[in-house]
């Protein structure tokens, strides 16, 4: 996603899968952004996104996006009410540009 990179924003994918599984998935899908694992759902819980028992009885995250600035402050969020409707990269870029990020 060069559009994000050009704005100094790193794309970070997060899922509850184990690192080995994530590695395979990233390879399969050809993702070039950073993909991290939250195997014990600790981070997902801190962001209050745990969807308990939603996948074959296991806890997973509901899809959501958080834009975090250089000081660790949340600048924008998107928490879909319907997990089939996901954020498009264009929507995220539009939200990002609306924030008028000052390049440093």
């Amino acid at each position: 996603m060069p559009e994000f990179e050009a704005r100094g924003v790193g794309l970070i994918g997060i899922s509850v899968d184990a690192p080995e599984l994530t590695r395979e998935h990233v390879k399969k899908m050809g993702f070039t952004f950073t993909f991290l694992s939250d195997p014990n759902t600790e981070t997902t819980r801190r962001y209050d996104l745990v969807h308990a028992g939603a996948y074959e009885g296991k806890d997973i995250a509901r899809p959501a996006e958080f834009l975090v600035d250089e000081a660790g402050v949340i600048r924008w969020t998107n928490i879909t009410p319907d997990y089939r409707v996901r954020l498009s990269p264009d929507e995220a870029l539009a939200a990002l540009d609306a924030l008028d990020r000052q390049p440093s």
Partner: protein
Amino acid sequence: MTGMMTDRAPASTVKRRWNIFLPAGFFLSIVSFLSYYSFFAAFPLTRDIPWVNLLLFGVALSLLAAGLFRAYRSPELYRGRIFGPILAAPALAIFGFFIYLNFGAANDLPPSSMAPRPGQQAPDLALVDMTGAAVKLGDLVGGEKGRWALLVFYRGYW
């Protein structure tokens, strides 16, 4: 009893046609259900609103309705007064289940009322990267270039 037999005499002497609408509709309703998960869910255009599958279900249920209609309207010509409902009931159930999965369950998400909001400090991360090394929020944002990060939470279990 004898009277009924004479009334139905034509039906028993003329071989009645197989009512192809009924098995076709039943079969198509199964295809409508499975093809979403095996194929159409892979594309955002047919996944977010499963219109192709709803269309297929529409055809399947229309076939079943037409099959039932002619089975009862012209029982002397068409079979299906017994196996028609037997096929139509599960087809309807499959359709109902599909509607539930796509329009009920997909919206059945936890409230997430405590999720961090804009302006709040982002909770720290306790993640591991693909090599198993720990990653904190400070590793992703700030630094010399003052980087930001877009955290994208996925459902996982690919």
